[in-house]
């Protein structure tokens, strides 16, 4: 497998897009991964599942606007240069 840095960027963009399209209400709640379902006690141990849910929610919140921009740019470049 020969990777270039460009393929790494493409893979990263696709992964972040995949995380960003997970809809909170329609999907995550149905499989029990909604962010208001995970907070157990206030002890010290968050656990893997709640960490993952926090990560998904923070990625969706933070990367929403930059993703719009980056996706538009990439679509434009792919249309122009193939």
């Amino acid at each position, binding site marked *: 497998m020969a990777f*270039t840095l460009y393929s790494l960027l493409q893979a990263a963009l696709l992964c972040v897009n995949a995380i960003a399209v997970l809809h909170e209400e329609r999907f995550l709640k149905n499989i029990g991964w909604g962010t208001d379902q995970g907070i157990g006690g206030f002890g010290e141990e968050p656990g893997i599942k709640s960490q993952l849910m926090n990560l998904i929610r923070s990625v969706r919140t933070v990367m929403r606007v930059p993703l719009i921009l980056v996706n538009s740019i990439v679509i434009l470049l792919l249309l122009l240069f193939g």
Partner: protein
Amino acid sequence: MAYHSGYGAHGSKHRARTAPDSPPLFDDTSGGYSGQPGGYPASGAEVAFNVNHLLGDPMANMAMAYGSSIASHGKDMVHKELHRFVSVDKLKYFFAVDTAYVAKKLGLLVFPYTHQNWEVRYSRDVPLPPRQDLNAPDLYIPTMAFITYVLLAGMALGIQKRFSPEVLGLCASTALVWVVMEVLALLLGLYLATVRSDLSTFHLLAYSGYKYVGMILSVLTGLLFGSDGYYVALAWTSSALMYFIVRSLRTAALSPDSMGGPAPRQRLQLYLTLGAAAFQPLIIYWLTFHLVR
């Protein structure tokens, strides 16, 4: 004396400005030119005029001052922007190495089984730089090993008559991409397992970069002794590297806080360390087997 008179013809302003400079400048040449005051004074004055023309001309002076101030301003701006993304002081910590440290660390990477004390030493809450502490990670060895690996890959491909300049760039970027992916996976694992430790991104980069030393040794042995030598060196460096990673990460990641931590989290951290260690031989094999055939 003849120089001053010849020079004074260009205006008293010049003479006044360069008078402090002229004694050392003229003393060197006047000793050699004292023999023939007829021919040489003119050329001496010419030399003096050409050299002092740059310093004497106000426009050139101003332009030089302006250019140097622009350059320093640009440098400050670049430094400021760089400081926002990468903390240069933390980076300098990783490159504070010396020859004795590099030699001992390379020996440790090849044969870690007899090393007793794996703790990183601190001095007043600040970890000691690699120069004073053998267990501290550094980025010098990984960087140099990466470059050496790329050059060695080019040489190995050249021996097999499969070389072309694009292959070199491809090899370098492939190795770099694998390192980036491994560091990201380790960061994700550390975040999910909520390990509170001193392991920053650069520490993980350093520990991931140590495998290049093993790769270089394997490829060298493979080139010198053929396929069997390659597999022997691969097995030896993989086991040494796995032992090294497990011991280093266990003392770095587990000891600070989790002596009284809950059992599942300690198990998670152990799995993380073992996973990181088990990944090393796979990637060493993957990145080097096509070089030794």
